[in-house]
């Protein structure tokens, strides 16, 4: 298991390097921040000073080298906009997104396992059809529409929930989480249902029934663990989407998360913050993929064995 993990970490680190390089170069293609931060009336001497102060006068390879040597010492530069350390800004924003994503996925997975299993237990039953219809709707609703309708109905119309902000108790979570959870839930119900139908028609389920196992034992004792592998893979992908910035939800509900921070720093050519934000999401996504792989290995002994020691 340890060697399995080590191997996965090494093989993930390589693409990570390319992501860092790619973002660094692409960011510099968006234009010179000098034009944005200095007034049109700035003299060429002022412009040169600004460039020199932030290192934009060096050639790209030199800038890259400086960036890498500093990053290796956990110095990710300072924000052009705020003058704050980029790392601090990212680390302030990231937990907000992570919390949103974590709670969302937890609810989506648990809900989907329950509803999907119920639907799969009797294919084409009434429950199955209702679940199929609802999950399709859930998976297709545009989240910005749902969010705005939520604000309109529950925030403005009924005045039950706050329209935006992170200050308050549990009620501030309701609309953002509801908006985020609906699509992953819809998608996952369909995945769970599909793989559960497959698992429930497998011979080992017949064998379990032939031993006198009841519905609960058949579904949760035998089928679920076999059915959950594709669910994990899809859930991993969906989580990546959430971590990558629930931009719309963060914008509509005014949550200072990483998605909002990234968009702002792109628009402002705030390279240091952008690079730090991409780096932390990339690391998280790789960690997430490793986590999904580890879960696969824990669930299925055949995956564990397929990796030579």
């Amino acid at each position, binding site marked *: 298991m340890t060697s399995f993990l080590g191997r996965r970490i090494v093989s993930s680190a390589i693409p990570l390097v390319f992501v860092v390089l790619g973002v660094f170069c692409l960011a510099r293609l968006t234009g010179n921040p000098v034009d944005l931060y200095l007034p049109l009336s700035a003299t060429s001497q002022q412009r040169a000073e600004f460039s020199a102060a932030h290192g934009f006068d060096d050639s790209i390879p030199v800038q890259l080298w400086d960036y890498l040597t500093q990053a290796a010492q956990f110095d990710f530069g300072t924000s052009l906009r705020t003058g704050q350390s980029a790392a601090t800004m990212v680390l302030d924003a990231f937990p907000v997104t992570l919390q949103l994503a974590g709670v969302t996925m937890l609810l989506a997975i648990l809900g989907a396992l329950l509803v999907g299993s119920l639907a799969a237990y*009797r*294919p084409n039953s009434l429950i199955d059809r209702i679940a199929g219809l609802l999950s399709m709707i859930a998976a297709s609703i545009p989240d910005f529409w749902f969010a705005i309708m939520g604000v309109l109905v529950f925030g403005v119309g009924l005045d039950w929930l706050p329209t935006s902000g992170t200050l308050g108790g549990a009620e501030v979570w309701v609309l953002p989480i509801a908006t985020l959870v609906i699509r992953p839930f819809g998608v996952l119900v369909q995945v769970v249902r599909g793989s559960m139908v497959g698992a429930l*028609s*497998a*011979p*080992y389920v*017949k*064998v*379990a*029934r*032939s*031993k*006198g*196992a*009841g519905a609960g*034992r058949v579904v949760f004792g*035998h089928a679920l*663990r*076999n059915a959950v592998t594709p669910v994990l893979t899809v859930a991993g992908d969906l989580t990546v989407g959430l971590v990558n910035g629930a931009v719309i939800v963060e914008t509509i509900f005014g949550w200072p998360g990483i998605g909002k921070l990234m968009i702002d720093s792109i628009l402002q050519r705030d390279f240091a913050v952008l690079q730090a934000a991409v780096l932390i999401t990339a690391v998280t996504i790789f960690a997430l993929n490793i986590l999904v792989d580890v879960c696969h290995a824990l*669930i*299925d*002994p*055949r995956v564990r*064995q397929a990796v030579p020691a």
Partner: protein
Amino acid sequence: MKPSTLPAPAAAEGAALEVEGLRVELRTPSGTVRAVDDVSFSVRKGRTLALLGESGCGKSMTALSIAGLLDPVAEVTEGSVRVSGTDVLRLSPAGRRKLAGPGLSIVFQDALTALNPVQPVGRQLAEPFRIHRGLSRREAKEKAIELMTRVGIPEPRLRARSYPHQFSGGMRQRLLIAMAVALDPDVLIADEPTTALDVTVQAQIMRLLRDLQTERDMAIVLITHDLAVVAQRADDVVVMYAGNVVETGPVHEVFAHPRHPYTKGLLDSVPEHAVRGRPLPAVPGSPPELSAVPSGCVFQARCPLAQERCAQERPHLVSVGASRSAACHFSEELDRV
């Protein structure tokens, strides 16, 4: 067609398993078809009955309906199945579950898919004891290890923690058999238990089954298309064709003097009867689609003896000697050939 009025081959008295007039229908997109029609037989404790027929003749469907494991598209529409006197088709789902294991159990064909790939085998073997005897995890595990020892798994204590894919095909079949006999069932259904195995392992598995049968006094229903297995291991045979029983009786009599042209055709196509330089004898044609079973005799299209009568009138299973019966208008003639 009405259920056969004829008594099943083995004496019904004290039978461990009695199947009478069993009919199974399948719902398909193009309508309902009969997969099993008017099948009757019975087996006593300690005896083996073979259900013989080619793929798709309804023998596995018969087994699954006896065990109550039919897929939702299939349904038993007529007949009765009694396990040690209890009509299992009338039981509640909970009542059936109670019987599944101690009353009747089943060994499936492909042991790789029949064992749960993500559970250690020890836990799967312990499950019957957990479900029916309410044993603790540890007690049940001890029972599982005893069973593994009994069916000849080396180092059972260690191997109980292994997963199905870590065993050979023969060992997996042993595990599956161990699981099926865990609670000393009255009736054991073995659905082609050796088809997935190579020949030497087949013989070992059949021997294990026979030893367990003697030891635990089980009635065995052996489902197979292997004539040699039937000849060596079964006491009685039920030959099925297109969902119908075409001939039944004690194996040695049926095989020595088949009274149905299908049985005869099967026996003639055993390669030992082949003559050098001539094509291997075979039953020409293939079985009818279940949706297009003819109104007369089900075998008419492939039968060398078929006449006009066979197209109009379906032959009933009639007695053709002591504890033998056949469903052919011309079974008398066949005997004289």
